[in-house]
């Protein structure tokens, strides 16, 4: 059994173990979940380091067009259509798997106090994460889509059962919109399969078989919208604010932190599979995502509910991911992937913190908070770091992503693209406005509510995830080289495809 | 010979068929509706026989099939009448328009 299968199977095994444990053994259930995610975290770190080691001897970007798949596990699986159990990772997947492992580990830590129907909660949570790992590891489109749906659906119960506020409504909306997106994806996958005519769902095989440009012209937006829905693409982002606002802590962390990345990841694969379509539609999606970025930030300024603020900031930040991808420029796409990683960490951090603060103050409205630094300095500092990462402060991961996307997008040689880039870059100001607004509102100033004076700072179990996330944000922000190497190497095939398509489209 | 031709039979069966359909649609009494159904079935049976007789006298299928139709129609009628009786016990009438407790 390969490493990837192990990573995917461990949470699934944990699900079975948890299902078999009696309801009352809450502590045991949590330990099983923690152990499973801990092992996965370890394995993913090993994977990361090993992959870095693997590619360290290989030539850098621009020179390599070979697919950088590693850890391949390939078995014939279902039927005569050529569905395979085909796992394999490139650098981007490795990074995403690592992110997933980190976030779920932190999520389990952040849910340590979970008491209501613990067993089902952790079972669904781990089921979900199985799907996420699977998506990032899969190289067969069918398998990819299968895991994709596995990752999306448990969310319904997780939000609907353990959420707050109008949770049934939010859960339904989220699920339906995302499944609506996946309806587009399944069309896309089938069309790709039959147009490629290679009798295999393997992404690289399909990418090599040229899909007719006329097909790509209509199929590309369909698939991009499909994945974009999960990636928070405007105007299909509205599941995100309601969904995230209603979801319990760990679920928000995982959903905003990792699941929205599935959207970006899928969009990247779409570009890989349909380069000509991407060239035709790139600008269109850049416009949409500009709306995303700018508009998400502006709306976030208005909100007073912390989760809504964070959700809209996710819309804005994930817009940057899709924007970077839409540019079809190597630098910007690198930035987009870094943004996936950075945003995953920072949103997970945000939602973890919101959960902890809500657990203490019992309010999520920033208008009802103030001066919390006095009572919870640790949480405050962590929140600040997260906020600074959000507004793209250098030294934290968000900056790397932003500057790469901007530089890459600016290199597109037309006024329209430049203007879009300038607009997007201008969002750093609006972002700063809302982030500072809520940071100062919550933590600065005199203690708003005398009741809050009795509150306590983070406990040890809470500090663990926060510390991990903060550390990673800072580490990735200060030493981006390894990420760039991973991404650059794995983007090479995509860029090669695009280059080929560009040449093919020249008269 | 100036006897009836295939067309006569076909037109007659088509008429039967249409009368059956019309009856199904307009009769409110369930038993009348059942009778209309029988008309439809008989129209089909008549067709088979007519075709057999005029066009394919060598193929026995056309002759056999109506017998099956008649047999099955009898079974169906038996079942239907049994159900009508059960229904009548509940609602004391056989008006199809008022048998609408299941809907929506």
């Amino acid at each position, binding site marked *: 059994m390969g490493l990837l299968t192990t990573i995917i199977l461990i949470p699934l095994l944990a699900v079975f173990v948890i299902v078999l444990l009696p309801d009352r053994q809450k502590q045991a259930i949590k330990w099983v979940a923690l152990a499973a995610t801990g092992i996965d975290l370890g394995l993913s770190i090993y994977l990361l380091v090993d992959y870095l080691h693997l590619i360290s001897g290989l030539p850098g970007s621009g020179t390599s067009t070979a697919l950088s798949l590693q850890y391949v596990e390939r078995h014939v699986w279902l039927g005569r259509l050529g569905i395979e159990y085909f796992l394999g990772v490139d650098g981007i997947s490795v990074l995403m798997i690592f992110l997933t492992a980190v976030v779920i580990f932190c999520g389990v830590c952040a849910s340590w106090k979970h008491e209501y129907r613990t067993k089902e909660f952790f079972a669904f949570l781990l089921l979900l994460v199985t799907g996420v790992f699977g998506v990032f590891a899969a190289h067969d489109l069918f398998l990819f889509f299968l895991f994709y749906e596995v990752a999306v659906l448990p969310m319904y119960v997780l939000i609907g059962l353990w959420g707050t506020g109008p949770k049934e409504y939010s859960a339904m909306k989220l699920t339906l919109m995302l499944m609506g997106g996946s309806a587009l994806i399944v069309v896309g996958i089938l069309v790709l399969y039959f147009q490629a005519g290679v009798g295999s769902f393997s992404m690289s095989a399909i990418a090599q078989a040229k899909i007719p440009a006329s097909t790509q012209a209509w199929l590309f937006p369909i698939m991009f919208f499909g994945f974009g829905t999960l990636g928070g693409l405007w105007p299909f*982002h509205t599941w995100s604010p309601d969904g995230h606002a209603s979801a319990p802590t760990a679920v928000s962390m995982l959903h905003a932190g990792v699941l929205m990345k599935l959207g970006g990841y899928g969009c990247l694969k779409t570009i890989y599979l349909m380069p000509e379509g991407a060239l035709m539609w790139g600008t269109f999606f850049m416009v949409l995502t500009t709306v995303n970025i700018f508009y998400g930030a502006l709306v976030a300024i*208005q909100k007073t509910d912390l989760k809504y603020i964070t959700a809209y900031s996710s819309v804005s930040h994930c817009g940057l991911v899709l924007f970077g991808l839409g540019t079809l420029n190597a630098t910007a796409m690198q930035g987009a992937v870094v943004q996936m990683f950075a945003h995953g960490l920072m949103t997970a951090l945000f939602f973890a913190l919101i959960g902890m603060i809500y657990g203490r103050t019992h309010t999520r409205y920033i208008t009802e908070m103030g001066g919390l630094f006095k009572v919870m300095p640790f949480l405050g500092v962590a929140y600040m770091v997260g906020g600074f990462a959000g*507004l793209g402060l250098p030294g934290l991961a968000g900056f790397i992503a932003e500057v790469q996307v901007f530089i890459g997008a600016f290199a597109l040689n*037309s006024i329209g693209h430049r203007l879009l880039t300038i607009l997007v*870059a201008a969002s750093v100001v609006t972002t700063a406005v809302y982030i500072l607004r809520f940071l*100062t509102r919550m933590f*600065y*100033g005199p203690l708003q509510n005398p009741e809050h004076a009795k509150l306590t700072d983070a406990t040890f179990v809470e500090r663990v995830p926060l510390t991990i996330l903060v550390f990673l944000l800072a580490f990735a922000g200060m030493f*981006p*080289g390894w990420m760039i190497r991973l991404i650059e190497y794995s983007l090479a095939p995509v860029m090669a495809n695009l280059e080929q398509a560009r040449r093919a489209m020249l008269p | 010979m100036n006897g009836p031709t295939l067309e006569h039979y076909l037109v007659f069966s088509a008429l039967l068929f249409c009368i059956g359909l019309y009856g199904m649609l307009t009769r409110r009494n369930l038993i009348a509706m059942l009778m209309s159904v029988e008309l439809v079935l008989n129209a089909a049976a008549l067709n088979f026989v007519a075709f057999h007789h005029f066009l394919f006298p060598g193929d026995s299928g056309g002759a056999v099939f109506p017998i099956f139709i008649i047999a099955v129609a009898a079974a169906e009628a038996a079942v239907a009448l049994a159900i009508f009786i059960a229904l009548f016990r509940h609602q004391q009438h056989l008006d199809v328009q008022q048998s609408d407790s299941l809907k929506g």
Partner: protein
Amino acid sequence: MTGHWFIDHLWLVPLFPFLGFLLVGLVIRPLGDRPSSTVAILAMVASAVVGWGAAFQYFTHHAGETLVPWQYEWLRFSPTLVGNMGVLVDDISMLLVLVVTTISLLIHVYSQGYMRGDPGYPRFFSFLNLFTFSMLGLVLACSVLQMFIFWELVGVSSFLLIGFYWAKPSAVSACKKAFIVTRFADLGFLLGLLMLSYYAKGLDFTFLTSPETVAKLARTTLPFLGVSALPLSAILIFCGAAGKSAMFPLHIWLPDAMEGPTPVSALIHAATMVVAGVYLVARMFPMFAASEPAILTVMSIGAFTALFAAVIAVTQFDIKRVLAYSTLSQLGYMMLALGVATLDKPLGFTASMFHLTTHACFKALLFLGAGSVIHAVHTNDMREMGGLRRKLPITHATFLIACLAIAGVPPFSGFFSKDEILAAAVENGHYFVFALALGVAGLTAFYMFRLYFMTFWSEPQDHEKYHHAHESPWSMTSVLIVLAVPTALLGLVPFGHYVHRGELEHHGINWLIAGPAILVGLAGIAVAFMLYFRPNGLPDRIAFAFSGIYRVIRDKFYIDELYLFVTHHVIFRYVSAPFNWFDRHCVDGLMDLTAQSALLSGRSLRRTVTGHLQTYLLWAWLGSAVLALVVWQMQAALGWALTFVGLGIIAGIFAWQWVLQLLNRSEPLKRIEKD
């Protein structure tokens, strides 16, 4: 590698404060105040030692060269575009290293006394270390990307330090304002960076400022606006510089930034961070100098700010605000000096750097002196001070030296640097700028001595406070004394010998220029003396006589209000709020509408299941008929028209059914029904 240990290990200079920050912030903080400040100061000492050593080695062995002793590839954007991190050594970076390490060290020491007993004492020192790290990183930046990175970091440390008293609402809004305004300006910097990354295809300063690159940029015509890339990118970068150096109209954050503790004001908002803008322009000087519009922009903005701030400073009563406006004015001076410099006559460059250095000393001294005063009387309002010279002798003496320096009285340092700026203006024929600068010099002397007299002379206004006032502890006063030395003497250093672009013709003091400057300065002092030496009603009467203008000036020309209106009312209420509404009601509404329409159509379709068998049969037959039509169409190639007719029939029946439903009469073919 230069073979000189200090230069080769210059990266230690920012590293020490960074380690100090981490150590103090994460490890030492719980141990208490004393260890925290000790570690922080030790970090600064180490940093200063390396900095001074490197500067010494540089000016003795490599003067005039530009070295990059250490750099590494930090972020690779593409195989050709690389963002390097490293250390750039040339005259101005060494100069700034000297200034920053020294002043920062002194202020660390000073803060030991000033911050004693504050609950956030360790936090303060860790932030100070963080700031110093960022500032040194900025100063030593070898690429414009690195500059931008540390640029933002100093911004954030400034934010943290302004908001040090986070429980105080005014401090909170001040730090927010500082951050957002500079962030807004940084957008310009960022865009400039983007332009450079694209048009110049490189980010290293050595590459960017090389004549070839500058020439190439000047040749590149943008596809829009019809200008070349050079002035536009230079002006965009200047936007960032203007934000950080609080040039008009981005100056509004600096006076409010005085909400921070006084050492912070001295270090960040007087001596070091605010000059980063000037430093940036100086760093990119070849680019600016090669582009007429850019350099003129720098000059005019600088000149206007110098005047504008000086005028406002005259009317302020908060001791730190006066100093803040004075800082603004002096920063305008420096910008102005850079603006009048050209590649041929680069005296302004030297003058600007010179003034930067002297200003760092005397303004730090002024702020620290003010801090000492505030420490003594616990108020910022000059109207509640007076007569403090007897209570605070050391503070008074050093403060006077600093005032004389800033007023441009020889032989104090300010005189020389200011004189050089005036000379530079004249040299390049900017007589109007010269006149304006001269006027500002007079105003400067006036408001500084207004401050001085109101604080130290005059009469004690608030006896309670006066009574409790006492000289500050040794750790503070010693720093004042130490700073007074360069304040007085720095002017005597042959500055142009060390820091210059191009060749400077060595000249002494041109008394034709210096003479009027001195006179104007003295005149300013004299007026201040008359109005404020003794308490009298004259200033109030003057203020009353010009009450309209006075009020406008006192309220800073209502620029804050303008900003507030734009941000709060226009953007928040008329941009952001409608977006919010649009998102919730239109975009989200559309999504809900989809679900609703599914539900609604389900509800109406449900009506077809009437429970009447005959309805069902009718549907089935019509269905068969329509199917026959459809299939017929496929083969007869009569087009889809009939199909649509068929579908139309279905729709019609549908509608009919629906109407019947509405009328509660759902029997089909009711009119035929007679039995």
